[in-house]
């Protein structure tokens, strides 16, 4: 990867931050920005210091910010609500578009719909959609 030193370092930090299940879970919990580090720490079977360390890694990667609120520091996952709302609708759209494609594939198989399973049909896979994940998604 040919990128300048600074960017490369930022990407490293971002990927390192995301490569840990606890840190990904912290990101999910802190979307509303109403949890302090100590409240967060109570949610995990690890020490306060260990959770604090995870939060610091996320903060350095730019994925969370800490805001002072009285005597507490509240952790918040990156804001910009409108952008995310649009993104949520985009993800829901791509999840449903992919579902409709699969429905179409099943309907064109034969009268019983007993054709090849998912991902093995004649149609090209649209690729995993983001929402599951979720729902996922969403499927969620």
């Amino acid at each position, binding site marked *: 990867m040919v990128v300048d030193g600074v960017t490369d370092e930022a990407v490293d930090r*971002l*990927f390192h931050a*995301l*490569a840990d299940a606890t840190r*990904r879970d912290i*990101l*999910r919990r802190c*979307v*509303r920005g109403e949890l302090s580090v100590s409240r967060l720490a109570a949610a995990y079977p690890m020490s306060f210091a260990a959770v604090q360390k995870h939060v610091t890694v996320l903060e350095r990667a730019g994925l969370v910010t800490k805001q002072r609120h009285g005597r507490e520091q509240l952790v918040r*996952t*990156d804001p910009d*609500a*409108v952008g*995310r*709302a*649009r*993104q*949520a*609708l*985009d*993800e*829901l*759209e791509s*999840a*449903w*578009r*992919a*579902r*409709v*494609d*699969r*429905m*179409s*594939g*099943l*309907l*064109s198989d034969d*009268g019983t*719909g007993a054709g090849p*399973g*998912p*991902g093995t049909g004649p149609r090209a*896979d*649209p*690729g*995993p*959609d*983001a*929402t*599951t*994940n*979720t*729902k*996922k*998604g*969403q*499927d*969620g």
Partner: protein
Amino acid sequence: MTVTSVDKDVDHLTLTLTADFTAPVERVWRLWADPRLLERWWGPPGYPATFEEHDLTPGGEVRYFMTGPEGEKYGGWWRITSVTPPASLEFTDGFSDQDGKPNPEMPTTAVRMTLTERGGGTRMELRSVFDSREQMDRLAEMGMVEGLREAVGQMDGVLAG
């Protein structure tokens, strides 16, 4: 193109999607009403869904989980609010926790699906509404995280090769 129109209304947190199939209404309905068929299109490729409960009656529940490539499980549920075979289905769609119970911290969407006969085929109209902006934000945030996680996974593959 099967999907003929999509409308995203950010102010009302609503996605409206129209799709046209050449198959008759009864067959499209079966894709929803037969859990073994539903399993084959609900989850994305690589995340097949298993429906453990599928009661399409008013107040009825549907429970399922999707299994990821590494065996990880993602659960979900529907609660049926209205059903008129083979014309319409309305339900609340949500996520489950690891025990298969509805997870109240996760977003839900209200889904209304209608099927109408059109030129020998079927038009499916789908409306999906997030129950709050806060929850919608939350889902997007998760999507971002999962998307990045996938990218990380792919990088790992490249680096290992």
